[in-house]
């Protein structure tokens, strides 16, 4: 089939976008600038700024000299590519093959698409109309080759943007050599020899051209007229992880909902399994016949594409799903998708399969609520309250070692104040009073001084003592502050076994 390509050129891509975002900038001169080699350089100028003579590449100081009240915005480096990618995604409605063409264009393979709009002319004007109502100033051209479409879009005269089939050469003749996407030194050479139009050198023998300008020029010429193939890489739009199930009759029974859920889950899991991905978060929605959407949501501790497990998680929440008069449409959407960690199958399970443990924890979490399951890892802090952190997943391993110093198995969440009798400043207490009971200390270890971490919080240090009473019960006490520096206070912080 005959190939047809379309090239779209956004003349002021980033500035147009800013005007769309902030309509108050319309009609004002402004620029996008970013630092470059120690000075701020204009990256893009609005139409009004261009009219004032502020071109990309000018230093900001020079631009300010031209127009002192110029609005300056910072230019994000990958904004252009992101924007082009989204525009290419948008163009999927016109053709299945679209690609961003950096720095400021799009490339569409429109072979066999334009007749749906009633011819290439209508197709072209439709795209141009929609893009310009959005607020972008664009030019576009259609040709047999990528090179010719590119050239016509940027340097074509205002009348014909559509090169007829097999007539690329004719369309290119009147264009300047820069339209062939040549390198700067080749362009310079052509300029020096007075070649202002492609027609002046297109018929020259290739040996002559190669000798003077290298292979680059010949390749670009061949690509433009269609003697040489040129490839482009179309974007692959992401298909959302969503499954739908419309119902002929409204569903209102729990069993019916379960069947619908199983149905969509199996389809989604099949796709996820093929891609080696799993669900971390999913939402199951039902559109009721009274127009209200009901939903239930689940989360998993690690990505899973096991429909049986996911169904069991949803099953716990089905009583919350109120179908009222009936549900017409069920949708299952994966909100968070991650790669599934596939561990090598072990022949003998000594320690149990972590995936099974993760499934159990998911079930428990769905039942008892979030943030109630914790696994702790050590943190490099001596302050007891800060010495642990919750692990993010079941596979996370500690990055530092656990403290070796004695720590109480039963730590009070808030230290409780106690009254003590201390013989000498640095000694452990002889007895202390806790909750109205006097406890006689028979043995003691310590002190272990833990300083407050000044970069996090300021405060006096704690001197910890492990003490044992006459019955053998052990306590973890600390003195906050030092003697001779105000009156230190004593606290009970935990119990040792």
């Amino acid at each position, binding site marked *: 089939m005959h190939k047809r390509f379309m090239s779209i050129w956004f003349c002021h891509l980033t500035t147009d976008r800013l005007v769309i975002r902030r309509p108050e900038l319309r009609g004002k001169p402004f620029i996008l600038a970013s630092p470059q080699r120690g000075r701020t350089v204009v990256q893009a100028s609005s139409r009004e700024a261009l009219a004032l003579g502020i071109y990309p590449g000018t230093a900001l100081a020079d631009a300010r000299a031209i127009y002192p009240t110029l609005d300056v915005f910072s230019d994000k480096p990958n904004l252009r590519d992101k924007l082009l990618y989204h525009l290419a995604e948008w163009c999927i409605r016109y053709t299945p093959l679209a690609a961003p063409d950096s720095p400021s264009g799009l490339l569409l393979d429109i072979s066999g698409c334009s007749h749906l709009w009633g011819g290439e002319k209508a197709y072209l004007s439709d795209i141009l109309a929609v893009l310009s109502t959005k607020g972008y100033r664009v030019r576009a051209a259609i040709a047999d080759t990528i090179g010719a479409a590119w050239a016509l879009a940027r340097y074509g005269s205002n009348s014909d943007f559509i090169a007829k089939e097999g007539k690329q050469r004719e369309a290119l003749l009147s264009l300047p050599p820069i339209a062939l996407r040549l390198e700067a030194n080749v362009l310079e050479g052509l300029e020096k020899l007075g070649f202002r139009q492609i027609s002046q050198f297109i018929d020259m023998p290739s040996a002559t051209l190669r000798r003077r300008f290298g292979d680059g020029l010949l390749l670009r010429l061949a690509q433009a007229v269609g003697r040489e193939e040129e490839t482009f890489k179309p974007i692959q739009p992401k298909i959302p992880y969503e499954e739908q199930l419309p119902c002929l009759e409204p569903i209102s029974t729990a069993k019916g909902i379960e069947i619908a859920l199983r149905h969509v889950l199996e389809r989604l899991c099949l796709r996820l399994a093929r891609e080696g991905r799993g669900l971390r978060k999913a939402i199951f929605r039902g559109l009721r016949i009274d127009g209200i959407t009901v939903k239930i949501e689940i989360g998993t501790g690690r990505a899973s594409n096991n429909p049986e497990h996911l169904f069991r998680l949803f099953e716990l929440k089905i009583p919350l799903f109120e179908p009222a008069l009936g549900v017409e449409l069920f949708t299952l959407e994966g909100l968070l998708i991650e790669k599934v960690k596939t561990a090598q199958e072990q022949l003998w399970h*000594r320690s*149990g399969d972590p995936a*099974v443990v993760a499934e159990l924890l998911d079930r428990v979490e769905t039942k008892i609520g979030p943030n*109630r399951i*914790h696994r702790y890892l050590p943190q490099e802090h001596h302050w007891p309250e800060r010495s642990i952190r919750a692990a993010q997943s079941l596979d996370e391993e500690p990055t530092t070692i656990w403290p070796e110093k004695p720590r109480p198995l039963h730590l009070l969440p808030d230290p409780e104040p106690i009254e003590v009798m201390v013989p000498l400043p640095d000694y452990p207490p002889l007895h202390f009073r806790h909750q109205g009971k006097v406890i006689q200390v028979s043995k003691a270890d310590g002190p272990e001084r833990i300083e407050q971490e000044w970069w996090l919080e300021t405060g006096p240090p704690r001197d910890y003592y492990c003490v044992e009473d006459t*019955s053998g019960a*052990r306590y973890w006490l600390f003195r906050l502050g030092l003697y001779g520096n105000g009156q230190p206070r004593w606290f009970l912080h935990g119990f040792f076994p």
Partner: protein
Amino acid sequence: MELTCEKIDRLRQLRKDVMALEGSIPNKGTRGDFSVKLGPMEAAFPGRTFPLSVNHEFISTTASEAASTQGFVAAMLGMLLRKGGYSLWIGNSRKAFPPALGLFGVTPQQVIFVDVKSERDVLWTMEQALKCNALVAVVGELRELDFAQSQRLQLAVEHSRVTGFIHRHQPRSLHALACNTRWKISPIASQPEEGMPGLGFPTWNVELLKVRNGRPGAWQMEWKEQGFWPLSGRKPIPIKKEERQYA
């Protein structure tokens, strides 16, 4: 010589048969390489081995007893988790501080703490966890438990071969449960080594109040060098007759 070997084998088989008739499950299974070494306390159990894949009940009344019980359970957990795997620690008012578990041979990251809101949820979570054969052990902190609920937990462990530890702090009543053992751990004054200042090793008075097919008893044990050692140089305190219950 051959005859004696045969006789020993037959005796061993007979003992096993009797134990099976009495309702105890031998420890051997898919994960039979776990073992809990309890020193002299092992004599109290049938076949001189600490029974796994059953529920163990622990009773405590005071805060220091609760801490000692946690320590004792952690020590057993440490022996079970030595070969890797995970265990769950379920409670509705948890105070266990993970770094302290290291003293009892437990790598704290092998323990997953589940903090639930109500006793009902503790039971539900405990039952689900005991059914999950990928776990090694489950510790549940509960206050009340009736016979029917304990039977459900027992059924769960029989199926999955997980070991359950139920810690009951200040229970209202001490009725019979479908648990294999009932323990009471209380702290006693430690014995530091001669001439050394400070605290000695953790020392407990371990009372085994009930044990199925075994003989209850009381021991004074010291936890040192990652093992249970009998406290030397002291006479064990005999427990009162009425506190002793035979299952």
